[in-house]
């Protein structure tokens, strides 16, 4: 276990490093420097500015300076607004985390329930309906679904507000973000539940006279949930990238919208910071879900 943990954590650290490397050098490859404005600067001013921002040093050294700053939580300032980036990111992340967390919760709960129902009613109408819906939702890009939701509930029916940070306006973005993970978890739970239901220990429990409800919840579902844990990491990654689109559609001031805005503004320090921040979250989530998977199921061999 310790060996696996060390290996897995080392891999995660390496991935974060590679992400920082890619982002930094990608942004450095963009032609034009931050001081190439219309107004020509005098050589002396330019040199002074470059010295102030360490731009006169070799690129490698700049990279490690940047890395050091990141470790202190200092991402520099935005080119567009001139504000401190880490403050902006944290502010935006609060909004994104609320929506993303709710979406993840929604996806897991609804997905597991639907998956279990589909498995228990195999080849009958509830199963068929659920299979139809999951197939449809896995084929629908999140932006299409989000825009349709907006069109129907906000514009046509006027049932829900677009976005005013109230709890009511949270509903649509959360549903839009959760649609794909819900469908995926439903499929996952169904297949693992079917697998669990055919196991010997279920037959033993039934023949012992354990009530059906208890068999389903205590014996089958508990074991069927293990594969769902492995999906939590990828799901959060999906929700985070999905938020890029969904937040833009519902005009929510979260990290996703900030990222897209910084791309359109060509605000390179901001793009760099948001990429690294989101990437670190994803890597950490993947790490946690992998470790949890091993902890929860003692049958899994550690290599």
């Amino acid at each position, binding site marked *: 276990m310790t060996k696996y943990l060390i290996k897995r954590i080392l891999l995660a650290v390496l991935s974060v490093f590679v992400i920082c490397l*890619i*982002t930094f050098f*990608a942004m450095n*490859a963009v032609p034009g420097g931050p001081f190439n404005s219309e107004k020509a600067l005098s050589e002396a001013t330019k040199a002074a500015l470059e010295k102030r921002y360490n731009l006169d040093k070799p690129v490698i050294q700049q990279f490690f300076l940047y890395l050091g700053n990141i470790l202190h939580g200092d991402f520099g300032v935005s080119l567009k607004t001139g504000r401190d980036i880490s403050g902006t990111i944290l502010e935006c992340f609060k909004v994104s985390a609320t929506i993303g967390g709710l979406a993840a919760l929604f996806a897991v709960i609804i997905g597991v329930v639907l998956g279990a129902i589909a498995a228990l009613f195999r080849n009958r109408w509830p199963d068929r309906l659920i299979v139809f819906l999951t197939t449809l939702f896995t084929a629908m890009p999140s932006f299409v679904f989000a825009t349709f939701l907006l069109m129907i509930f906000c514009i046509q029916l006027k049932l829900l507000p677009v976005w005013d940070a109230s709890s009511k306006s949270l509903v649509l973005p959360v549903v839009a973000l959760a649609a794909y993970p819900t469908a995926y978890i439903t499929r996952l739970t169904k297949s693992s539940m079917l697998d669990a239901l055919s196991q010997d220990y279920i037959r033993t429990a039934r023949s012992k006279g354990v009530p059906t409800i208890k068999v389903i919840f205590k014996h089958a579902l508990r074991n069927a949930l293990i594969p769902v844990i492995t999906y939590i990491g990828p799901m959060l990654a999906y929700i985070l990238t999905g938020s890029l689109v969904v937040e833009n559609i519902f005009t929510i001031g979260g990290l996703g919208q900030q990222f897209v805005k910084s791309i359109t503004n060509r605000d390179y320090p901001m*793009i760099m910071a948001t990429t690294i921040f*989101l990437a670190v979250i994803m890597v950490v989530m993947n790490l946690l879900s992998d470790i949890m998977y091993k902890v929860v199921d003692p049958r899994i061999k550690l290599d």
Partner: protein
Amino acid sequence: MDSNMDSMNMPKKSPFSMQIDLQRFEKATDEEKKQQDVMSESTTFFKDGMRKLMKNPLAVASIIVLVLIILTIIFAPLIVPYGYSDIIKVGGKRDKSAKNLAPFTYSAKEIDYMEETGEKLFPHIMGTDSMCRDYFIRVVYGTRISLSVGLFASILVLIIGVLYGSISGYAGGRVDLVMMRIVDIIYSLPDMLIIILLSVVLNETLANTQNPIIKSLGTNMVSIFIVFGLLYWVGMARLVRGEILKMKNNEFVLAAKAVGASSGRIIRSHIIPNCLSVIIITTALQIPSAIFTESFLSFVGMGVKAPMPSLGSLANAAREGLQSYPLQLVFPAVTIVLIVLAFNLLGDGLRDAFDPKLRR
């Protein structure tokens, strides 16, 4: 043993011999021999899979949908007399009144023109957009772009992934270890973020290029391909490596070796056909994910260059007039869903038909 030998001249068994007493056996009659004949035509792996695939109604339906879509995007531009980037012209003059028309309607100028000349104009099957362009032809071109991106990106993934995976699988040992660690790292990178990042950078760096190929494709397209080539092959590589490792230690490979098959023959007729199904299925399932990614990028505003449409950019453009012209969103959105759904179902069908082991 000589087949003409009959029971009379079978050798007598010595009472102490451990040999089977042949006299206790009866010769098979011709009728009984016939039972051993193979009645049905011998089938190949591919034929058998196709037969199973054709029995799957969902897979057949998705093939039909895909064929219809492909025929439409090939032939519609030859039939429809409008261009994807041209304002509709009536009698050689630009018709600025043909803005946001509903499907199958004509603008006032067009109606006047038709009454004047008695000539029937080609209907706007999906209406027109806010810049007076025929929407049907734009959706057709958008589908062309989205499908070809999906197809080429998947082929790219196929080539790189299979090469990398098989080298790693065959070589084994330290080479395999290093190659797979690289894959692990790339696999753990958040792909969408890196794609967006690289697209931003490549767009800037390729913006002033003189290369005619890049210019005609548009820098965004080129960056999408580069990014797919860099990042998306890892899943395929892992899969192919795993398959090859599994096949190498399989009993049938051992059996083939035991009967004296050369390693060339083992690879050609035992390992490759067994991996092929996985490769085909993954490629079929890769296409919708590539289409997803492309439409996502177009939606964020980093896809194909205007006026060239893609399904994602059409959907994005339609958001502005969403309240008044929701159909402009519905058409590209439904097309994306149809294509992705068809590829997903076809991929599932292929998996069921060609690789029953993978069946969930």
